[in-house]
């Protein structure tokens, strides 16, 4: 497993080289979400990277509406031409790069792509040009193992760096300070939500929009050897937001030359490992649903719309068969209590006695103590 990372100046290129990487990811302001290189600083970086023998990966990970896409591809060639590979996330950039360039592609599958079928799809659609897939940090260890075994190309994962929570194309910080001159200027803020116990979400507005990050950084450095055994090919260390670049310490920690505990103590941000052990981000879903709504199937008959104490229950007949005198039924109260019975008396909406009430009509039956509105009615046995 190799380490990879970003460089924004010549010193950082040297740091990468000295710490055993064979490549550098270069991000430019115009094409990368968080890149800070411009055309004056990009080419000297390329020259120096070449001298150091580093492979150059050009980061083009912004999302683009059609107008900005056209402008981007009109400007991008001189920079792409000098790169060894291009890293894309917008499916449009992916498709364009396959069709219009000869560069090897690295696809950022960090957004979703939580199943092997999707990841294989991106590889296959790349017509042999995909050289790497960048996996989502929401994946569990088991999924990473599975994917590394099944993918036809090497996989990369974030090993240390900020967790991007939110990416909007809209400028959301500058409206708070209308007097501030913000053209092409990054605005950094810390956000504190009224609803969350967490404080200090980093927020960044730049020319590509507004980004919010988690208060903690993502870190799997203590699992580096585990990730290597799973078959992961690249571990990315992202230091673009720290004043001091901790790449050397991170590399040593990943290589077990430095204790993780002492790394964590000196690192300026709190760390988390996300869903590495298990991803249970759907476990709360059943609780979000109204139980009443979960159990309408099979012998479902309808819903109690009115429960008039001592008088009647009005049931809206929702099944296609309808309801007959002699049918046996059970009623499930919204809180779960069960009532069973048989239809002896059945009236229609005009309160006229009937032997049958069809689909979509109101069926009036005698009141049953304890049954409330919104109780669900099921047929037990039918009187055919």
């Amino acid at each position, binding site marked *: 497993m190799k380490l990879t990372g970003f460089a924004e100046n010549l010193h950082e290129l040297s740091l990468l080289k000295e710490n055993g990487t064979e490549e550098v990811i270069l991000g430019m302001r115009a094409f990368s979400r968080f890149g800070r290189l411009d055309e004056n600083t990009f080419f000297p970086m390329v020259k120096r990277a070449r001298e150091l023998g580093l492979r150059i990966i050009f980061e083009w990970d912004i*999302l*683009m*509406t*059609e107008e900005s896409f056209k402008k981007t591809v009109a400007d991008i060639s001189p920079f792409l031409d000098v790169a060894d590979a291009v890293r894309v996330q*917008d*499916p*449009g950039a992916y*498709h*364009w790069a396959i*069709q219009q360039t000869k560069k090897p592609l690295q696809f950022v599958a960090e*957004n*979703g*792509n939580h*199943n*092997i*079928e*999707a990841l*294989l*799809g*991106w590889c296959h659609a790349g017509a042999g040009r995909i050289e790497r897939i960048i996996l989502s940090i*929401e994946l569990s260890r088991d999924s990473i193992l599975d994917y590394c075994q099944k993918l036809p190309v090497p996989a990369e994962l974030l090993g240390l760096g900020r*967790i*991007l*929570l*939110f*990416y909007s*194309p*809209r*400028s*959301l*910080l*500058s409206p*708070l*300070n209308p007097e501030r001159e913000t053209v092409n200027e990054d605005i*950094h*803020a810390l*956000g*504190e939500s*009224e*609803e*969350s116990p967490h404080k200090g979400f980093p927020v960044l507005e730049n020319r590509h929009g507004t980004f919010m990050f988690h208060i903690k950084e993502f870190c799997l450095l203590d699992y580096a050897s585990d990730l290597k055994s799973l078959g992961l090919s690249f571990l990315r260390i992202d230091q673009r937001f720290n004043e001091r670049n901790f790449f050397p310490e991170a590399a040593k920690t990943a290589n077990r030359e430095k204790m993780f505990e002492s790394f964590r103590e000196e690192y300026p941000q709190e760390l988390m490992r996300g869903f590495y052990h298990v991803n*249970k981000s*759907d*476990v*709360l*879903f059943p609780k979000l*649903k109204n139980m009443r*709504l*979960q159990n309408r*199937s099979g012998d*479902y008959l309808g819903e109690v*719309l*009115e429960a*008039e104490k001592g008088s*009647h229950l*009005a049931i809206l007949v929702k*099944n296609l068969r309808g309801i007959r005198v002699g049918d046996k039924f059970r009623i499930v109260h919204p809180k779960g209590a069960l009532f069973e019975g048989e239809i002896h008396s059945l009236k229609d909406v*005009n309160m006229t006695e009937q032997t049958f009430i069809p689909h*979509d009509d*109101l069926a009036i039956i005698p009141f049953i103590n304890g049954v409330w509105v919104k109780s669900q009615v099921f047929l037990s046995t039918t009187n055919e």
Partner: protein
Amino acid sequence: MKTTLPEVLAPAGSLEKLKVAVLYGANAVYAGGQKFGLRTAADNFTLDELREGMDFAHARGSKVYVVLNSFLHDKDLAELPDFVRFLEEIGADAVIVSDLGVVRTVRALSKIPVHVSTQASTLNVEAAKFWKSMGATRIVLGREVSIKDAGIIRREADIEIEMFIHGSMCMAYSGNCVISNFTQGRDSNRGGCAHSCRFEYTLEDLATKEKKSAFFMSSKDLQGLRLLKDFIDAGIDSLKIEGRMKSHLYAGTMSKVYSEALRYYEEHGDFLSDDLLNWEKELSKVSHRSYTEASLENPAGAESIFNERENNSAAEWKMVGTVLKSSPESGIVIEVRNAFNQGDELEILPFRGSPVTVVAHEIMDLTRKTILRTKPTTIVRLPYHAGINSSQLVRQKSV
């Protein structure tokens, strides 16, 4: 040459809402099963309800698209094939998908047309071409795309285009927000969004150290009624209304307003009508945040931010109930959702045409006993009024 009008595509959060949307004029509805869609807390459809909804819509010339737009994990995807076979059997008109794995699974198992969800944030011609090459027949564009660009995408990628015209909006690029995943352990891309963008935040500018409180990442609601002509001119195939979690009144009003506006255009070739003001009034009668045209013309700016607390949403009118039955024998039988009093003025929304005003001079309960005030979750009768039909919505101006 006759202009082809876009379809009005309405949300169907439940079987009842599907029926309401179709009856009020939606050409198509989108609905979700119990799994695989993004609205975890919506009623959603059982298999029987999906079948019934499909039959109901098809019998009235409307289509049903089924949402499979979660970013599915492997274990979810493993459960998908049976559902896809079922959808094909009941005649689903399309599935709405955001994940490439789901696209490939649906394509391998069925001939159901695949629409790429807005959740995939398709924003440009090349992205549309990519999805087309994967077998998609329609793209639901990201809400960041202007109508003009959408027209270009349609022409150059040669694929059907669906655009949102109305409803709540994610402030993030759709599918690019995982706040809930990491702060609440709920996967927003599998239906667990906790709407953290609607919270108030205190923001400290790191350069000036100034602190400000704001609902800085909450978006106003989209409303594109006045841009209908532009949608038509750009050749947009489908106009989507957001809101499977929203009320019956919302589903009915939106379907009615947008389909009536398009019918007017079909007859007159323009929207130069006093009705435009009426349609706008109708849209303001349902609960909503302040409206914006967002990025439909130009990229959404500061004016598109809804810097207010959520419950300040405007709701000029409330729904008081649904007509269950209407005949000379039964009278107008109403399932009451919000209480009203004898003498109150109500409006019943016909499937076509202007609202019918009914004064509740006499209210009876189901046993025909006269009452002075209704209660929610009861059934009452009003005297018969010709032209009122079952499933029509009853509303009242909020005091």
